[in-house]
Each structure stands twice: as C-alpha cells, then as structure tokens.
C-alpha cells in the first residue's frame, strides 16, 4: 500500500524526517519500544536483586585483582593443569569477594580468554565481543546506505559481513557461557558468589543472545531475498532498513547489558 520511495538521503543535513515513515517501519519502531520495556524490566529486576547484596568496596578490587593475578601465575608456574575454578576461587573466597553474601566483582569472574590459560585478563574477551557487535552494526549501516542508493551488490556484501559479525558474536557468547559453566555455574549455583548472579547472567545474556540469534535469522532472510533480487524488483530496499533498526536495537541493548553485568 503505502510504498514510500526513499530519496537519496542528504545524510549530513539530517537525512529524511524520521516521522515520514511507512507503516511497516513504524511497526518496527513500535515493536522496538515495546521490546525495550521487556529488557528494562529484566535489567531493573537485576538491579533490585543486586542491590540487596553488598558489593565489593571499590578500593578492595585493585588489591584483589593483584593478588588474584599473582595467585594465577603462581599456580601455573607450579605446573597445575586443572581448570581455574577449583584452584583459585577458594583463595579469594577467604577475602570475602566470592562469598554467598557478597556480589562478585565482574573483573575477577570474567577474566578469561581463549587459548590464554592462566593469565588474568579482566573483561578483555567481552570487550572483543562488544567490538564485534558494534562493528556488525557499522556494516549494517553501510548496507542500509547501499540499499538507499539501490546498489544490490553492495547490500549483499555488507549484509554478509553483518551476518558474519552476528555469528561471531554468538560464538563468543557460547564460549563465554561454556567457560562460566565449566567453572561450576548453573542457574541454581555459582562458585563465584550468590547463585542469583549466575541465574541473572544466564537469563539476561541468554535473552539478549536469543534476540541476536533472531536478528541473524532475519538478516539471512533479507540476504537471500536480496540475492534473489526481490528488492530490486520492488524498487526499494526498505526491508533492509527495517532489519537494520532491529539490529541496531539489539546492539544498543548489549551496551546496557555490558554496562550492568560487566562494568559496574
């Protein structure tokens, strides 16, 4: 019905008015607004539960990290080959940070990197994940821009990179989960501290991961449609923009998840 032809956007003058949209794009915006409330409810629930636990005092964290790094190096210098959880956590448990009563410091929980056993690398891996997801958003922007120019091959190229980025992110998340689970974490138990920490981690990152997965599936559908020339025949690439909106939203949500679960 209301097929809106997309003019060449004068990007630096603000582009097309965001309110001049077709009903399909409007629906995507409205859905994202609704989804934002779902994520907010989960993150606020996270905040409420976390607030009921005391967190590690900030001045202790540096000290703990130092001792933790030394501890790690020492153990591996002695040739210990077992997994980190069993060896290093008890030492820190004595200092209180991984106790049942204290919310664990993410710096000490998420300090692993593939193929780098025995090194203390706080939040390096998750930063890489974040970088991958943000880069995939950049390629999505380029794909949308190519669609606005009506350049089919460019759209194919950038959609391919976006899908690859999505898969890379999901793989990273799978590794992160595996690592956390092999350390002994389940929804009802957590070697690093209160079980609720693990439960919330699995729930929220899992819910986000499910969104990323859905986004990748949508991207693949768009990718195939584009190769088949559906949008070329239709005369516009609005579908690319719509999944682009969704993809950016998922990226934005990750920024919040990253902030709440890893940074603070």
């Amino acid at each position, binding site marked *: 019905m209301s097929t809106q032809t997309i003019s060449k956007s004068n990007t630096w003058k603000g582009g097309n008015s965001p309110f001049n949209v077709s*009903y399909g794009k*409007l629906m995507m915006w409205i859905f994202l607004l609704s989804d934002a409330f779902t994520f907010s409810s*989960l993150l606020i629930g996270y905040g*409420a*539960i976390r607030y009921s636990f005391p967190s590690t005092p900030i001045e202790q964290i540096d000290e703990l990290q130092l001792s933790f790094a030394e501890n790690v190096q020492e153990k591996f210098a002695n040739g210990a080959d077992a997994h980190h959880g069993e060896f290093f956590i008890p030492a820190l448990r004595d200092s209180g940070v991984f106790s049942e009563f204290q919310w664990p410091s993410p710096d000490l929980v998420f300090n692993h990197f593939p193929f780098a056993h025995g090194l203390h690398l706080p939040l390096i891996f998750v930063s890489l994940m974040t970088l991958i997801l943000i880069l995939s958003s950049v390629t999505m922007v380029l794909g949308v821009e190519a669609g606005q120019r009506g350049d089919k091959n460019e759209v194919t190229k950038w959609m391919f990179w976006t899908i690859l980025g999505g898969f890379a992110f999901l793989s990273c998340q799978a590794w992160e989960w595996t690592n956390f689970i092999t350390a002994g974490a389940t929804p*009802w138990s957590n070697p690093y501290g209160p*079980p609720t920490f693990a439960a919330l981690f699995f*729930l929220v990152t899992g*819910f986000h991961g499910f969104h990323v997965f859905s986004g990748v599936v949508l991207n693949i559908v768009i990718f195939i449609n584009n190769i088949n020339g559906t949008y070329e025949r239709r005369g516009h690439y609005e579908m690319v923009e719509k999944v682009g909106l969704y993809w950016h939203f998922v990226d934005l949500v990750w920024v919040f998840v990253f902030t709440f679960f890893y940074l603070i």
Partner: protein
Amino acid sequence: MSSSVAHADHHHEETFLSKYVFSMDHKMISKQFLITGIIMGLIGMAMSIAFRLQLAYPDTSFPILEWFFGSKWAPDGKLDAGYYMALVTMHGTIMVFYVLTAGLSGTFANLLLPLQIGARDMASPFMNMLSYWFFLLSSIVLLSSLFVETGPASGGWTIYPPLSALPKAMPGSGMGMTLWLTAIVLFIVSSLLGGINYISTVLNMRTKGMSMTRLPLTVWALFLTAVLGLLSFPVLLGGGLLLLFDRGFGTSFYLSDIYLGSAGALEHTGGSPILFQHLFWFLGHPEVYIIIMPALGITSEIIAVNSRKPIFGYTAMVISLMGIAFLSFIVWGHHMFITGMNPLLGAVFLVTTLIIAVPSAVKTFNYLATLWRGNIRFTNAMMFAIGLVSFFISGGLTGIFLGNATLDIQLHDTYFVVGHFHIVMGCAAIFGMLAGIYHWFPKMFGRLMNKPLGYIHFWFTFISAYLVFFPMHFMGLAGVPRRYYAFTLLPEYGVWFDVNVVMTLAAILGGIAQIVFLYNFFSSIFIGKKSGTNPWQANTLEWTTPEERIHGNWPGEIPTVYRWAYDYSNPAYDEDFMMQNVPDEGVEEELFETSKTKVNKSAKKPKPEAVTLFTLIKNWLKPNTI
C-alpha cells in the same frame, strides 16, 4: 483509487474458511473477538455465581454444583475450599484479561479504528488475524487448565510468588499455574500484535482531512489504550520470564528462605517476592486503564450522539486521556502500600494516585456537561453509557479512599477493595462494552437490537450490580477480609451473613439479565429490524459505509473529512447533525468552533490552522456555546 481496485482484485473469491474463520477483514476479526469475549465472560460470570453461592450459603448443599464441577471439586454439593480459590483466580483472570482487555479493546479497536479514521483495513491485516488466533489459543490454554488433575491456578489473579513460584506449594501451583503462565505469554503476544497494528493504523492510515485533532474520542481512547498495552505488557512478560525460571530452572529471583511443610527448608536464597509485585503492578495498574479507557471513549461518542450535542471540551477530553495514560505508569505502588515500602515512596505514590482524580473528574464533568440540556435520546446504548458514568463516579470516589496510604493499610485485602474495583473497573467497563455493542450492533450485523429487551437488560444489570458491589464497601470498612472461603468459624463477621445472601441473590439476578442480553444479541443477528446506514444520525465515518459490509469498507473512494466528529445541533445546518465527510458549502471551517458561524457563501475555503500546543490550548479555552 488504485488500492481499492487492488483490493477488489484480491478479495473476489472468499470461501467459508477465509470469510468467517481465517478472516483478515477487520470487521470479521472484531466479531470474532466479541463472540470469544462473550463466551469467556459467561464462563467468568458462571464462576462468580458458583462462589457467591458458597459465600451466602456456606453450610448448604447444592447438588447442581456437584453435578457441574464433579464430586472432586464439589463433594456433597459443597465447593471444595481449594477449588473456591481456583474459581476466584480464574474469574479474575478471565474477566480482567480475556473479557475486558481483549474482548473490549479487541472488538472495538478492530471495528472502529479503520472505519472511523477512514482506512480500508488495519495496517497489517495478517498480523491482525494472528492477534486473534493467539488470543483464541491463549483462551483455550487457560480454559484447559480447568481440566487438569490438580486444578487450575489458585493463588489469585495477581499470581504472587511464592504460591506461584513453587510448583509444590499448593495443588493449583503445579500444572495449573504452568498453563496460566503459558496462556498469559500467548495473550501478551496477541496484545503486542494487536497494539502495534492499532497504533500504526491510527498514526499512518488516516484519510485525507482526518487530522489527529479531528479524531473521534473513541479513536483517541483506543489509540492510547494500545500505547498503554504496548508499554506495560512487556514488563509482565519480563516478570513472567523470571517466574518461569524460578519454577522450572531452580533459580531464586523471587524466592528466599522458605520452609515448606512437605519438603522442609528450601535451598532458595537471595530473591525477593516483592520484586514480582513491582513488575506485576507495573503492568497491573496501566491494565486498569487499558480496561476502562476504551469504555470511556465509547461513552464519549455515545453520549454526544444521543444528547445531540457536541462533546463538551473535546481537547480537555483528549488531554485528560493522555494524562490518565501517563499517570497510570507512575502509580503502581499504591497496590503495595503494605509491603513495607519506604514511607516517603508511599507518599510519592499517594500523590501521583490522587492526581489521577483530576483528569478523571475532567472526564466526568465533561460527560455531565454534554448531557446538560441536551436533546437526550434514551437508546439502549445511551442507558448503558449513563450507567458507566454512574459507576465511574461511585467507584472513582472510593478510589480516593484507597489511594491514601493511611486508609489503605486498614482497607487492604478487605471487601472494600473488591467493591471498589468491581464498580469502577468491572461494572463501568462492562457497561461501556455493552453500550458499544448496542450502539455499533447495526454496523456489525446490519440490524438493530430489540429495544424493550435492552431496557430490561439494562435495569436488571444496573440494579443488581449496585446490589452486589455496594454493600461490599461496608463489609470492607468493618474489616471483612477478601478471599475467605467461609466465615462460619468467624462469629465476629456473623452480622454480614444476611448481606451476603442479598448479594448472592442479586448476582443471580444479574446473571439472568445477561441471558436476556444473549437472547437479544443472537436473535437480533437474524431477526432484528434492518437498521439502514445511519440509524443514530451520527457524524462519524463508519456510518458512511454501505449496508452490505464489504471488505475494503467503501466501494468507491475513501471519504474525505471536512470537520470534527461532533457537529451536532449546529444551527448553521438544517439537520441536527453533519457528517464528517460532507463538504462545506460556504460554512467557514474552524477547528473546534461549533458556535453559530457566519454563512459566507463567497468565502474561499480557509486554510486549516496549523495545530500546535498553543492552538490546542487556545481552542480549548474558547467557550463552546451552543
């Protein structure tokens, strides 16, 4: 118009299935919502009569109960205590979600939005169809929980943990609760699909000339209702997700330090059941307005049409709807005054709650001012609309009692609360829905409903509703707690036994009145008087469609709109109404001006004034003299 041709091409062949079952026509979908809602409403009402019998005659045996519920749930004709709780829970769930949310919004948003804004159908007819089917699936799942061995969910419609979070807490917490949650997740999907559709339809599909400030108030109300649903149901989804994890995966989001008689001390630590209450009531309070706002919108329309007067203070009505919609998100704490919340926070919620009285009072006074010296036609719809105003006032006043934290601590969980919300949200919304059914029945089925039967239905329903719910306030003030199975062992409440009998008899009377309605509704579909295109001499666009209700609504072009929806009894015109799609002939067009305008035949059509907040307020302040 190219799209109408396309429509005609698309829909020329319709089988029974595509026309009545898997229909994508918004008018058919609205009928599907309505019929499903009526069936759910009957089930909910039957449940209420069953547990009212128990409350009035706790020691009497009713063989019909045993015949109906079986000897497990009603041994010797007496309702089982656990099953009493289950019935109360299911009654609340069905009435709140399935009748007054989906049944009311689903019916009238689907019927009226495209017709009143001048669109051929919803923005996405396919999603609209999905919305109904998810709703039907959800209803079936919910009803199926009545038949599981351990019985349906029985922890109250608010499903507070730990009763809902521990599958072993009580019989209804097992399979019944799982089915309840499944049904609600399906319901949320349905409401999301519907809401997205309603909002984008209103924003994007209005016909030429239909500015937002010319929308009928029904459209405004349904639009804002959709916004409320869109923003509040996701939070229940989030809360429900945490609850599902607690039930199925051993997490402790809502659980901490629990000792269960059968299982000993549980291993859950670290959660808080209060968190669930916050998440639930963040939905739960907007939900109240999701229920009442469509009814208020319907009432605005019906009162204006049947008073033959412009609605008083159109802009004030719109702004107060917006105010109610906004405020409804920041008052949820008033359901939780006794959870030990910080008194300062309680005071904040108290203030925001009482502020809602202002837009509500604006609406009430505008209804009364519209009725004032109107040329009132007491049609069936009008009776129910006036009934809504009555309930809205008497229920709204008790809301001010309950909004006060100090009083609420005394009245919490007593019959005062039950009386309050049944009058202001139950009866008022049901009356709005019935008013809408009587008013738009000709648009749905092309026939009129029987008027004398409608009056009988109205008076019996109205009187029985007050007889059932008004005494509850006195019981609540005396401290009678809600959710009690029987008061036989509590002699201090003995003085209320007789009142309970009166209430139950009134409830049965009300139930019988609904049978009159059902007969009227279904027989009028086939033998009602033909209505013609515009039986109520109303202005809005739905009455410009032809009698045979075609897919695409208008056979030719979509009508263009030249004026607002409430041009009744304007002395500039010969008739006492002027439909929105009739072009001006020299009558100067002014946005909200309904006073006698100068007839100036030579004048060019003036450029419509740009609508800004300033002009809105300016026009609002302008006196609407008739």
